[in-house]
């Protein structure tokens, strides 16, 4: 790429146009990467926080567990794809145990759930640190190269990540809208007593939905592992952002989830270009608080208060 040494007179000449286009497309794709990850992490949270009213502060650890699963498989000599298959399984196992051991006993005690799941989160973090040792864990992406997209050159792996996330989301939408299990979930969410009345095992439905959300978060962790710094403490950043996705987007619809992810992820990636990441995070937080103040039921359901 030629250096931008030309005078202001030639600023509008042809070399500037591809540059601007390059910038726009790269920013857009970066935002799309972040939005994809947030959407996957937020999905599980939308199920547990938004629909079951369970504030699960250990949700970030599902992401961490997924990332560590990929690292573990790779360090044992397995391929990235094998690790990526293991990630949702690892997330599901942890989620299932958590639901059975703790969360199902606390459905009627929200503050206790917050404390207990935070305790579990600390235990998982320290457990991972004691098992795998201090320091960031290296995870290599399956594809190193870049792809030429006419306007810009972009890492191929990130494009794959976006595609997998989109396919997963599509799968979830189909699962919820087209299968009998999806019908069960929607019934339980709308009216738990009534669902029990017509013979749906609501406890089992909750458990499966929770485990399912954990698995998706684990998958997100596996996907993000080559791009992120894999640490036992990595979960908390995803936790906070995913909660904002759910709060801003409003609960109860895939549309709200997408809107929340676009809001948080898009704002974060655009701001990251201009200012330091911490300041960007602070601004996103403030924007989210203001958004909640103006639209208490979420961006997507804004009109229906």
């Amino acid at each position, binding site marked *: 790429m030629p250096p931008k040494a030309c005078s202001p007179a030639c600023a509008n000449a042809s070399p500037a146009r591809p540059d601007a286009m390059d910038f726009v497309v790269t920013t857009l794709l970066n935002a799309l990467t972040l939005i994809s990850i947030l959407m996957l992490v937020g999905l599980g949270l939308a199920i547990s926080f938004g629909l079951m009213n369970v504030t699960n502060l250990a949700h970030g650890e599902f992401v961490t567990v997924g990332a560590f699963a990929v690292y573990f498989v790779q360090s044992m000599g397995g391929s990235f794809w094998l690790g990526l298959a293991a990630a949702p399984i690892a997330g599901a196992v942890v989620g299932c145990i958590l639901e059975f051991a703790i969360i199902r006993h606390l459905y009627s005690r*929200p503050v206790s759930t*917050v*404390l207990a799941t935070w*305790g579990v989160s*600390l235990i998982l973090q*320290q457990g991972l640190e004691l098992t795998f040792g201090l320091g960031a864990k290296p995870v290599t992406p399956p594809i190193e190269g870049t792809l030429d997209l006419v306007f810009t050159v972009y890492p191929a792996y990130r494009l794959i990540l976006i595609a997998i996330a989109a396919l997963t989301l599509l799968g979830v939408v189909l699962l919820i809208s087209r299968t009998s299990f999806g019908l069960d979930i929607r019934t339980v969410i709308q009216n738990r007593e009534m669902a029990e009345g017509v013979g749906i095992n609501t406890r089992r439905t909750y458990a499966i939905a929770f485990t399912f959300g954990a698995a998706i978060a684990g998958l997100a962790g596996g996907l993000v592992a080559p791009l992120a710094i894999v640490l036992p403490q990595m979960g908390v950043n995803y936790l906070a952002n995913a*909660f904002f996705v759910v709060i801003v987007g409003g609960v109860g619809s895939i549309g709200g989830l997408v809107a929340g992810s676009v809001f948080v992820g898009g704002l974060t990636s655009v701001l990251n270009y201009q200012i330091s990441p*911490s300041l960007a995070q*602070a601004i996103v937080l403030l924007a989210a608080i203001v958004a909640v103040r103006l639209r208490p039921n979420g961006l997507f359901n804004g009109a229906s208060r």
Partner: protein
Amino acid sequence: MIARDRNWLLIFVVCVALAILYPFIADGYQLTVIRDALIFGLFAASLDFFWGRTGILCFGHAAFFGIGGYIMALVTLNDAIPFASLLGLAGAVAGAAFVAAIIGYFLFFGGIRGSYFTIVTLAMGVICQQAAVSWSSVTGGDSGLIGIPPIEFDVAGLPVDLSQDLPSYIFVSAIVAVAVLALWSISRGRWGTVLTAIQDNEVRAAALGHNAPLRLLVTFVLSAAIAGLAGALYVCMAGLVAPDLSGLLLSTEVIVWVAVGGRGTLLGPVLGAIFIQRAQQTISSFNPSLWPLLLGCVFVVIVFVLPDGILSIYARLKSLFKGRRRAQ
């Protein structure tokens, strides 16, 4: 109700008496240990004042502790500012209260309660710590700021210098005692009664003419101001300030202190802070990474075994014996 108040005052007087007697048996180092623990006890009491009375959990209370600490450090390290200690304390309290007022306004008047509030304050704590790390030209980054002078000021011409162990211990104990007593009298009076009503049923309390969001906001701001004061005191006693002071781990620990000591008792959290810190120091000297693990276990155990804190063991035993006596 009156018997409970009398019991509380009795325990309070016993605690104050112990605090007065302690310097006679302890050496300088032990005094400083208790002094620092008392500061964290004040911090715990500030969280309890909000959480215990409103039932809303703030998961980023260390943000206010850290804000107070950083303001105190910046004011006292600046040679150009006169009366640095007093101005620093005032600035720390005002700064923490100001941030709490802004965040609280949007949340309480936006109808944010319960879990939503917990999440937003959690994120607030994360961001405060990140800001402290990344804004290194002001905050000193990861390593923080060192060389913060001890508190010194004049009272009617008499110089008060808190660089020694005993004066600083007395100063901190007095502040903690006065603050806890003040918070207690607020929370047992009319103000606290209205807060309890709001916690039980906000719509009904509002229908009776109480401005619920405003009450919650003022309580939150007061709680944050005390947390800022505790942060400022700690920074002067320790002589340094670091991003950890506004971090998530401290926010977590203060919740444990309150939960172990007994939510809504104000004195319990102070005692909880002192005892758990002693335990933490013992365990951390043994293996530093073991502490967060144990902390996690404490959270889970409290929720399932002791939802009302350590002090509830006494009440439980009492009811157990009563039940037995009645059975005989």
